[in-house]
């Protein structure tokens, strides 16, 4: 009985959030249409939502192919950025000299806007996918490294004391205590990374590329096909939101104690 009720509640709350999402989207679309109508916007400045929707349908396969390129860049960028970030954070935790020399360099490197590096990356890695992957990886490297390092460094001392009295060596302490304790902090870093990685990929595509949603937007812009540009933008936004949602679900699934500990 109780079970039935809780299932019902969860179904209702899911419907509730779907309703809210639908209403939000409708209100935004309404506002968009209102701006177009009230200010008599020409379609080459702000196309009406219906026109953009038509473009989404008619350009479906083109958008999909370019979206796949951008998505691959984002996912590869995330993979390399997160792996390198974890590796550097571990090195800094384990080896004091690495920490002393590397941390100031890492912090100072943030003074260089990563976008300014885009043309150099094109020069070094070419106009293909590599330069965009490097760009996305570079942009997320810092948040991942710092959050992971912070998480690893701030293990509650009580856990470490307990591990010490239980005779844990350094590696077991790292693997069984420090690393899992750092996961909630690292998860915040990964959430930031998932939001930021698409920026890196698209900026890379703007600077020079032969495919991807950024490339498509640039091409449409040059031809004054603003509705196409908006369609690409909407696909990009959908992919980014979808990726964030998926990551968030996965993190909650694998770090179930996160929400509880965040409340403390």
């Amino acid at each position: 009985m109780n079970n039935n009720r809780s299932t019902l509640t969860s179904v209702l709350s899911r419907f509730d959030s779907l309703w809210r999402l639908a209403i939000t989207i409708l209100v935004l679309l309404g506002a968009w249409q209102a701006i177009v109508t009230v200010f008599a916007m020409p379609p080459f400045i702000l196309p009406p939502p219906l026109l953009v929707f038509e473009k989404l349908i008619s350009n479906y396969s083109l958008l999909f192919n370019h979206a796949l390129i951008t998505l691959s860049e984002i996912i590869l960028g995330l993979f390399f950025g997160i792996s390198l970030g974890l590796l550097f954070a571990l090195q800094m935790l384990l080896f004091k000299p690495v920490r002393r020399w590397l941390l100031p360099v890492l912090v100072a490197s943030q003074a260089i806007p990563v976008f300014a590096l885009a043309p150099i990356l094109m020069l070094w890695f070419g106009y293909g996918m590599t330069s965009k992957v490097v760009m996305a990886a570079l942009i997320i490297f810092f948040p991942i490294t710092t959050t992971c390092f912070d998480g690893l460094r701030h293990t509650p001392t009580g856990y470490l004391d307990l591990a010490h009295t239980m005779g844990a060596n350094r590696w077991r302490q790292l693997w069984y205590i420090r690393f899992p304790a750092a996961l909630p902090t690292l998860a915040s870093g990964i959430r930031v990374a998932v939001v930021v990685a698409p920026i890196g990929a698209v900026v890379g595509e703007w600077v020079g590329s032969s495919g991807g949603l950024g490339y498509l937007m640039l091409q449409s812009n040059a031809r004054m096909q603003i509705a196409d540009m908006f369609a690409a933008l909407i696909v990009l936004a959908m992919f980014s939101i979808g990726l964030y949602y998926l990551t968030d679900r996965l993190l909650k699934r694998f770090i179930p104690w996160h929400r509880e500990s965040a409340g403390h």
Partner: protein
Amino acid sequence: MTSVQISRASLHYDHAPMPVFSDLELLLPAAQWTCLLGESGCGKTSLLRLLAGLIEPQHQMSGEISCSDGLPIENRIAYMAQQDLLLPWLTVLDNICLKAKLSQGKIEAHQYHRARELLVQLNLSGIEKSLPDQLSGGMRQRVALARTLMQDTPIVLMDEPFSALDAVNRYKLQALATEVLQDRTVLFITHDPQEALRLADHLYIFNDAQLIPLALPSSVPPRAINAELGAFQQTLLRKMHSHYE
């Protein structure tokens, strides 16, 4: 069973103007509870950490810790703190078997079996697969007690393990702990005079870096909270008051 003798123990934290204590002598008799009572910051936790080997090497420490059975104290202590220190990502069963995981890298079937027996003994059956966040404060501290028992060490160090619990749970856990830890040499730290009087076989006030022994009621721990204990508590409070002045 082993008794533990602490001789000429001194501790001076790096950058601190004064030593926490110097030339301290303390005997923890075998299979008995020795309680240290003192206000916060008096150094009682530092003494416990010294015994547990938890003082970092940059601080100055000296003295000798010897066990009556001639074996070293390292790896023969279990530690129970004010927080239950249950790892939130491990199930109750894995938390109880934590020592096996940390010292051998894996948990054997017979260790799981023993952990399940302990859960039954501590009235906790049915929560093996639960995560610590799903349990109440009293249950969590009982799981921590099960983990301490699972370590199966002759010496148990307890640093105010029940102070975060409500009165009823604290009372129940005090009785349970004395029952299940009766053959261990226990050093118990508290700031609560009633708790100390209830549980101690030997009681000391830690004041001005000195240990002052105190008289106890003649009954056996865990003592009932009755008029005799109340009278002792009154005397003790008066004594503590004059020491803290």
